[in-house]
């Protein structure tokens, strides 16, 4: 237990000490929210469609988690570059534990950022169906955070350097984001987008969050949660496998 908490604490200390990281990582989703929410919102309204800002908030929250979590994986590359990874890899602690402790720290960071974005959305006028739904919403956000930090750790363990990581990222992060239901409703999307989005785990996370916060969803909440949990399991297995293969 102490190992897990110390590894978690390490992530939190590093995060809280880097103010630029905190501000930078919240600024970007807010920009999306404002530009898209107000810009496109007006378009949607004129078309007599849904309240777009309301629709967008769960998408942007999950996008915050997506970017933050996968980028967090870069810590493995920096630890490797600056040598701290050796200290972790030779310790008499299972790799699963090292990953769990570190990833739970990364997931906490993602969750803090996503919660901040959610809070700002509320200030901007976002209203969930009731106050109580924020609790299950946080649970869904936490599961996605854990799954995606593991995924980020797996990607970072598979590459040698930061350039490689960024190259993979642009092939992973942006497609995951744009080929999902984060920005537009699936019901009115063209077939090809709908098919691609329904193969994307992020879609189910966003859909689940919409269900919880707004009471409207495309799939059933049971399917959303099942896909989300399966993603967590697969991502963790992938991370342990890749992490185990690291040689220094």
């Amino acid at each position, binding site marked *: 237990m*102490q*190992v897990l908490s110390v590894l978690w604490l390490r992530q939190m200390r590093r995060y809280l000490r880097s103010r630029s990281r905190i501000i930078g990582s919240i600024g970007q989703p807010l920009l999306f929210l404002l530009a898209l929410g107000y810009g496109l919102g007006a378009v949607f309204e004129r078309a007599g469609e849904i309240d777009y800002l309301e629709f967008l908030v769960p998408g942007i929250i999950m996008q915050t988690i997506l970017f933050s979590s996968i980028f967090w994986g870069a810590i493995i590359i920096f*630890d490797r570059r*600056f*040598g701290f990874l*050796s*200290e972790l890899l030779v310790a*008499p602690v299972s790799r699963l534990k090292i990953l769990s402790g570190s990833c739970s720290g990364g997931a906490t960071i993602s969750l803090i950022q996503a919660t901040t974005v959610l809070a700002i959305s509320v200030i901007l006028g976002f209203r969930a169906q009731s106050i109580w739904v924020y609790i299950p919403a946080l649970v869904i956000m936490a599961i996605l955070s854990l799954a995606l930090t593991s995924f980020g750790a797996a990607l970072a363990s598979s590459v040698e350097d930061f350039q490689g990581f960024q190259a993979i990222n642009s092939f992973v992060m942006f497609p995951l984001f744009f080929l999902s239901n984060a920005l537009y409703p699936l019901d009115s999307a063209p077939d090809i987008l709908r098919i691609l989005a329904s193969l994307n785990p992020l879609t189910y996370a966003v859909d689940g969050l919409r269900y919880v916060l707004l009471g409207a969803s495309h799939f059933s909440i049971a399917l959303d949660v099942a896909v989300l949990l399966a993603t967590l399991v697969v991502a963790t297995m992938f991370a342990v496998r890749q992490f185990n293969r690291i*040689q220094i």
Partner: protein
Amino acid sequence: MQRSAIEAEGVTKRFGKLVAVDDISFKVDGGEIFAFLGPNGAGKSTTIKMLTTMLRPSSGKLYLAGHDVTREQAWARKSFGIVFQDPSLDEELTAYENMELHAALYHVPKIEQPERIIDLLKLVGLSERKDSFIKTFSGGMRRRLEIARGLLHHPKVLFLDEPTLGLDTQTRNVLWDYVRKLSKSEGMTIFFTTHYLDEAEEIAERIAIIDHGKIVAVGTVKELTKKTKTKTLEQAYLKLTGESIRDETSDANDGLNMRSAMRIRSLRG
């Protein structure tokens, strides 16, 4: 029969075409202080990395107290401690936090941690700076902290890869005194590398000399000088490894040994 604390049997490590370690075999007894000497790029660190589960050998077997290191990695990791040649601290944490993390990773009981950490920080003269971030430390201070961290738990086997590189004379003496005491009082096996031959001569009970990935001689200082018909360890060493500088193998290695390169540069002024 007592099993050797460390044993290598025909171990080879290849990096692509390069044979970094070439079919080496040796044994180190429990409680022994053993030095591994050799020119830059000879394969010392690679051997230590294989013994400490960081690299897998291309062929051959490695044992710690009779346990196969490659097959029983978890067991192996419980039995050794290591001070790496390359930097391995978390720069964003303080000295104390680095020590605390290590203590937790190595299961030092929580109530014993503060006292042990402070004692070791005092030993290396860093107790006043315990709450400073590593990024504000000088190279020698970082090295001192890594040494202190390596001594935080008491393993059966302690690997020290060029522990004294960049350290001042005072700290070096403190380190070796402490290590000798540990080896005596706890029967700890010490496996170290160094480029300071006087250090090896004074501390090590037995020495292996490795060159181009091959062990060219093993024995006590006396045995080595006798074998080479020389008077000092330095003469024996130079006779065995030649006088030429190992540039073609060591400097081409893309920054992996950057710290040593930097330290050597700074030592040269």
